[in-house]
């Protein structure tokens, strides 16, 4: 049973979203996703300032096993990326909901987050896989 914090929202494509206030959201990949991928070796992030739309492939999480696209869960502007992942991609494995975050988005419409899954909904979507 993997850890799915109830204070986050989720996309069915395994991204998590944490509201930081002021329309800013931190994005990462779930513990379940990092577990499927295995040891991370590179994380290719967008650039700060990039405009992204919901569903765009904006990052790549590459593990020993496979390369996996990461999709923008919200429409907006990338305002920060986790530069620590350049040298320590394994943070995505060891702390997927903390130090392993990927990037922050300033949402065009902060209400869009309400359309994402809650923890229960995400658990259900994993169970269906």
């Amino acid at each position, binding site marked *: 049973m993997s850890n799915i914090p109830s204070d986050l929202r989720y996309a069915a494509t395994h991204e998590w979203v944490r509201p930081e206030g002021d329309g800013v959201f931190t994005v990462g990949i779930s513990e379940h996703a990092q577990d499927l991928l*295995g*040891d991370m*070796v*590179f994380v*290719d992030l967008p650039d700060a300032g990039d405009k992204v739309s919901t569903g765009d492939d904006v990052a*790549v999480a*590459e593990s*020993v*096993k*496979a*390369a996996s696209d990461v999709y923008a869960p919200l429409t907006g502007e990338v305002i920060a990326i986790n530069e620590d992942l350049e040298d320590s991609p*394994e943070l995505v*494995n060891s702390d997927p909901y903390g130090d392993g975050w990927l990037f922050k988005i300033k949402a065009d419409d902060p209400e869009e987050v309400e359309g994402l899954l809650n923890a229960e909904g995400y658990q259900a979507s994993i169970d269906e896989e």
Partner: protein
Amino acid sequence: MSSKTALHAKHLEAGAKMVDFFGWEMPISYGSQIEEHHAVRQDAGMFDVSHMTIVDVTGEQAQPYLRYLLANDVAKLQDKGKALYSGMLNEAGGVVDDLIVYHFDATNYRLVVNSATREKDMNWLLSKAEGFAVTITEKPDFAMLAVQGPGAKDKAANLFSEAQKEAVAGMKPFYGVQAEDLFIATTGYTGEAGYEIMVPVARAAQFWQELLNAGVKPCGLGARDTLRLEAGMNLYGQDMDETISPLAANMGWTITWEPAERNFVGRQALETLKAQGTDKLVGLVMKEKGVLRAGQKIKTDNGEGVITSGTFSPTLGHAIAMARIPAGTPATVEVEMRKKWVTVDVVKPCFVRNGKSAL
């Protein structure tokens, strides 16, 4: 219903993530595959390889049979216990399987063949034995463990009796010896020193536990794959198969052509292929971000090729691969990665030896 090795419970106890591997339920890793990889390069790791098939070939005509069956020549083996790596070919020169054969005397040999091809191999061994006075016996009563790494031999020695220590003292690479209840061989699939040890099934779990107590780290199939690829060792079914000749799989060195009158299965086809020229298996290195993967397409000046095995090399910190390309000696080739063509360097397919870069 999948098969389980004698160490199945020990894997679960160690927190393994289990996967189906050609009908066997095997550990892919016990946590971090990369940490397991480093353990083998830096100290000592162990693998359950009990899913591999042990076959004894005995009888008056064991030697002539194996000289017919295998592309490499067992007549080269003079010392008791000396091992040989060989392809077992079909009439078209394709690789039915690759295997290790241990020589005890001209009437007594032991083969270790792949698990993925067990049934096919047994049928093949039996069909080719027609007309030879040989007995072919599978040995399912053994578990097999590979203990590998610079610290592997010292740690394993903690488990050996005085007689076993004496039997392996000064044993060179690629030898095997039966010492009391253990068959101990200086072989492996990692490019490091160490042993492959056949243990009676009844003692297997205890043996594993004692190695664990001696500080040997359990390693799964994931680390086994990155280690063998760094060492430039082929994986059957991926780097070669029944449609690929050893000439096109970097296994030319395993074909013994002399004496010319030795007829082995596939010889005629190989001679034709050799005269025509074949594709070849090369190494690839990419230092930029990204990972080379099996199946990616390759372009060279002489035509197209394909990556047969690719990974991120934990020891080197960048991507490495084996690729089959048309004959020629390009310094670089183009690889299609995620819809882009990337230029990568061509090298000999051996990337790491004894813990150090071989590039």
